[in-house]
């Protein structure tokens, strides 16, 4: 038993995801507390160059196999379990994303190892790993201890600053591993379905005004657009607003949408469900406007206004315009 921490490095269409770096940050801290080292597992086909960015880990296992070209949970879990049997980590950290949904669960099942989902923080106490996990949409937090090894922890994205997991130096060691897998996956990716090209890439915007259900109707989005225009940014929305068809898919922020990090994120009428927070909680300045002072969004926001979007948006637009005029005068 090496007792190291193994982080599953997920990547999508040629780039490592921010969630991977969050996991590396968490893994490094955990390894440090245990006095062990951090290892990363990079699975795929023809993507060895990505290992260079995993410098936070002391060692990267590059798991190459043509069947791993696209993420299919069965094969990924199988490859990982083979790797785990060899490198015997204390814990395996897997980001909980759409991309890898089910991989952690299958891995834990195959290894007959303990699994914990929705992890937001990991710590060591009395030599044991303690995991904090959010349940019931963020309403309650569980402190869980594994009774077995390795622990397969599913990390909830957005819980950690990904910058802490990035390094300018490459990893000291990259080791190749060829798993025993069938030549071709049973489940086959046929094609990607791209979202309709929006006029605006919300990931590039300096300011985002995000609308949720509290905007009440499609017409009121115009108020948000006016404010966004005054601030030099764009409008985006949470899943319910996109599902209603009030904003196109390209404007969705959250688990199935985009992860954004604008200079300022103004969340209007958004309650703060974990699926949405995941997409924006690392923004340096988060302001929330909501009629409910108990809304979870106020826990992650830096500033908040308790009020009706329909009152606050015009007032803000007015104030911003006035301030711009004053500074230009």
């Amino acid at each position: 038993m090496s007792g190291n921490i193994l982080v599953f490095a997920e990547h999508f269409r040629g780039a490592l995801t921010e969630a991977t770096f969050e996991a590396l940050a968490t893994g490094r801290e955990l390894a440090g507390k245990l006095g062990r080292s951090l290892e990363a597992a990079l699975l795929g086909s023809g993507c060895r160059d990505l290992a260079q960015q995993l410098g936070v880990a002391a060692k990267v296992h590059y798991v190459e196999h043509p069947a791993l070209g696209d993420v299919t949970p069965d094969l990924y879990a199988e490859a990982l379990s083979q790797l785990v049997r060899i490198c015997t980590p204390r814990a395996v950290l897997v980001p909980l994303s759409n991309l890898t949904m089910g991989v952690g669960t299958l891995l834990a099942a195959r290894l007959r190892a303990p699994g914990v989902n929705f992890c937001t923080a990991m710590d060591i106490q009395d030599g044991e790993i303690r995991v904090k996990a959010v349940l019931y949409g963020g309403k309650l937090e569980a402190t869980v201890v594994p009774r077995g090894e390795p622990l397969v922890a599913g990390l909830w994205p957005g819980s950690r600053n990904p910058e802490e997991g990035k390094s300018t130096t490459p990893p000291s060691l990259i080791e190749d591993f060829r798993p025993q897998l069938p030549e071709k996956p049973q489940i086959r990716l046929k094609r990607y379905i791209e979202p309709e090209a929006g006029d605006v890439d919300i990931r590039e915007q300096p300011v985002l005004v995000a609308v949720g259900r509290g905007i009440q109707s499609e017409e009121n989005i115009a108020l948000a657009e006016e404010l966004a225009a005054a601030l030099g940014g764009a409008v985006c929305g949470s899943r319910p607003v996109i599902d209603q068809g009030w904003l196109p898919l390209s404007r969705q922020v959250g688990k199935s949408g985009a992860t954004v990090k604008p200079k300022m994120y103004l969340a209007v009428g958004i309650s703060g469900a974990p699926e949405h927070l995941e997409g924006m909680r690392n923004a340096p300045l988060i302001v929330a406007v909501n009629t409910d002072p108990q809304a979870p969004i106020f826990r992650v926001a830096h500033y908040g206004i308790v009020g009706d979007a329909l009152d606050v948006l015009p007032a803000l637009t007015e104030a911003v315009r006035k301030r711009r005029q004053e500074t230009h005068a």
Partner: protein
Amino acid sequence: MHDPVAGTIAGVPAFLALWVATLLSLGLFGSRIWRYVKVLKTARPEVRWDHPGARLRLFIEHVLLQKKFVREPWIGLAHLVLFWSFVCYATTFWWNLIRGLFPALPLPYAEQIPAIGKWLEIFAVLGLAALAVAAVRRYVFTPERLVRSADASLILVLIAVVLSSYLAGALATSADAKRIAWWVHMFTVLGFLAYLPYSKHLHLLAAPFSVFFTALQRTGMPAPSDGAARREEFTWRQLFSGLACAECGRCDRSCPAFQSGYPLSPKDLMEHTKRAVRGENGGALLPPEALWSCMTCMACMERCMCFNEHLPLIIEMRRRLVVEGQVDGALQDALTKLNRYGNSFGSPARARTKWTQGLSVPVRDARKEAVEYLWFVGDYASFDPRVQPSTRALAKLLNAAKVDFGTLAEAEQNSGNDARRAGEEGLFEVLMEKNAAAIAKTRHRWIITSDPHSYHALKNEYHWTNGHSPVLHHSELLERLMGEGRLSVRRPLRGALTYHDPCYLGRYNGVYDAPRRVLTAIGARVEEMPRRREQSYCCGAGGGRIWMEDTVKVRERPAEARVREAASLGVDCLAVSCPKDLVMFQDAIKTTGLEGRLQVRELAELVAEACLAEA
């Protein structure tokens, strides 16, 4: 005068000509009417002949005296005249026809009796004058949605000919002229009779039945059913509205949905119903987007002079859409929340009493102790932060007046009124059962509420197992308390304001004066909007519409039009007595840019300002 039936007409024996014409006319008329009757017989049954005494009274008031119609300037009186002219002429026509068909009868012709002849002449002149008024209204000052159809024009011409032919005959001196006038008159009437079932003028025959078979209790609700989509699934009375429709356009002119640009036209509904009875369309009366646009305000039925019942048709069709699960997102969401949480906000039941937090006066739990007044608070008054201040104001008023009151606290559910009007009968029953069970366990003498929707449901549509407590709207209770001196005015309001009659308090239940008297008692001068009392213009929230999204671009929402109407009076305050009105008009004031010029105030808040030691 010579017997007009003697001799020949164009070489044919006149007597024979009359027989042929009569048989032809009655045949056409009869067969067509019989076809309508057959369609109505295959429709669903409905009992509309109970309380014949009350029905007879309505018949006298509204058919013979035209009580509702006669109030309209110019056309009201004109129509009354035309009606009685018709009655007169119809009577004498049958008289003369029988005499003409059976010359052996020892009967004079009607006009041969001087008194009758005189009346006929008077009615001819009056009738022609009335016709002129109607024609000017129709062709010069054409009201919106009144179609100047060929049918309508033909009818006017036929009536003119009937009347003037009689007059011509009466004034003519030569026997030949009189004879010609008589035949022209008879043939025209026979032609009219044959044409009648194909014309909008069928309302002549149908409207009186419409009145006699009206709903004695005006709720617009059909009896519980699975809804309807095809012709034979509606009741005969629902289909009958199509036949009685005179295509006047009053319903469209008063419909807030139509006026705002929603895809609903009550007049089109009547026309499609008529066509369905005639077998001219597949029976599809209105598409779903039209059906969901209805606010159930009943302005259409209030304005209809033929006592047509638009709303039951819409409700039946909504029910069928619900049965088929064809309910769109936002409404489905609201219905699901109502079923699960007993309120459309999706708030847990325990949050229902949050409005009492920080309230300086006690609100008793009627589940635990007997109270004199059981206050059914209602969803919006409990949960919506914009309405909660007025709920608290009412609690303070009741306390100051030493009223023994309590609520059902968390056990209260939405009254179900709007779920029912959205077509979800099952959900209404569930909510009603829960509320009735909770209320049955309490001991109280009166039920009060500030919500007209709940008021209507509790008062008129709930089934109670033992006894039925009287239900009061808070305006009625406040009027009573002020009258008894239990609330006194310390700071009269002064200044003018206007008052909006809520649909479910006014049109549905006839409560117009209590709120006005309360407002006057607290010192306000009530200025009336043009659309007041029975003509009040709905705020747009009813029928479940407050839960629905607009799927079309509307010109101007009903609430927006209404606040503009209020502002145009020059007052700065619009008083309301319904929580949904409060919310709708507050939003409308923002979206119409009237902020700062017009305020919406709830009745309890105004009374609290005027009467409480500390507001």
